[in-house]
C-alpha cells in the first residue's frame, strides 16, 4: 500500500468559486494501479471551491453502483532533480468525488487517505518497483 502526498488545486484557478477556503491542498493519496480513474474526497474539493462538471455511475462493489460527481482539477506530486531541487509535476484530471476513505492495515494502524491516484494520473509518469530494495519510484 503506497500513500504519497499530492497537491490538488482548481484547474485553472478561475474555476474555483469566490470565497473558497484554500487555493490548493496537500493531501495523502493512495497509488492504485488497479484504478482507471482518480478519486479525491469531496471535503477536499469543497475546500478548494471546485464544483462538478457532471456525474458518472461508479461501481463501488460487486452489488452496488452509485452516482458520483466528477470534477476537473490539477493534481501534482513533488519530486527532486539530480541537484536536489524540488519540482512539482501537475496534470489536469477529471476526478471522481468521494467520501474520505480510511484503510486499516490492522486495528491499531489506520491509514487515512483522501483520494486515489489511478492510471489516468500515473500514465504521465514512469512508475517502477524495486522489490529487493522495497522502493517505489515515480519519475518524469
Amino acid at each position: 500500500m503506497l500513500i504519497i502526498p499530492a497537491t490538488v488545486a482548481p484547474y485553472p484557478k478561475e474555476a474555483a468559486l469566490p470565497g473558497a477556503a484554500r487555493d490548493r491542498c496537500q493531501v495523502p493519496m493512495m497509488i492504485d494501479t488497479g484504478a482507471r480513474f482518480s478519486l479525491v474526497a469531496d471535503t477536499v474539493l469543497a475546500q478548494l471551491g471546485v464544483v462538478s462538471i457532471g456525474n458518472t455511475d461508479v461501481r463501488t462493489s460487486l452489488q452496488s453502483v452509485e452516482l458520483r460527481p466528477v470534477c476537473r482539477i490539477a493534481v501534482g506530486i513533488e519530486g527532486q532533480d539530480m541537484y536536489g531541487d524540488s519540482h512539482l509535476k501537475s496534470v489536469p484530471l477529471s476526478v471522481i468525488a468521494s467520501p474520505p476513505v480510511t484503510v486499516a492495515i490492522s486495528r491499531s494502524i489506520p491509514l487515512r487517505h483522501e483520494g486515489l491516484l489511478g492510471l489516468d494520473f500515473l500514465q504521465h509518469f514512469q512508475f517502477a518497483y524495486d522489490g529487493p530494495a522495497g522502493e517505489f519510484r515515480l519519475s518524469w
Partner: protein
Amino acid sequence: MDTDRSTILDRDAILARVANESARFRATIPQLLAQYRGKWVVFRDGAVVSVHRDEETAYAEGLRLFGPAGGHVVAVVREPEPVLLSAAIAFGL
C-alpha cells in the same frame, strides 16, 4: 441564481443544478448518439451548447461560456457504463 455573483456559499446549489443537468444529458444520449457519438460536449438547459474533439477544449469552453458556477455539464456522448473504480474497492480488499 445569478451565476456571475455566486460564491462558495452557493456550492451545494450549483452541485444540485449540475446533477439535474447531468440527468437531462443522460436522458438525451439516445438522441445525441447519431450526431455526436464519441464527441465531447458542453450541455446546459437540456441542449448541446458546443461540440469538441477532446475533454480539455470542451472544459475550457464551458468555463469560458458559463464560468465556474454555470451549472453546465462537460461529457462525452456515449452509452453510459458504470466505471469500476478499483478491483480492490470492488472486492473490499
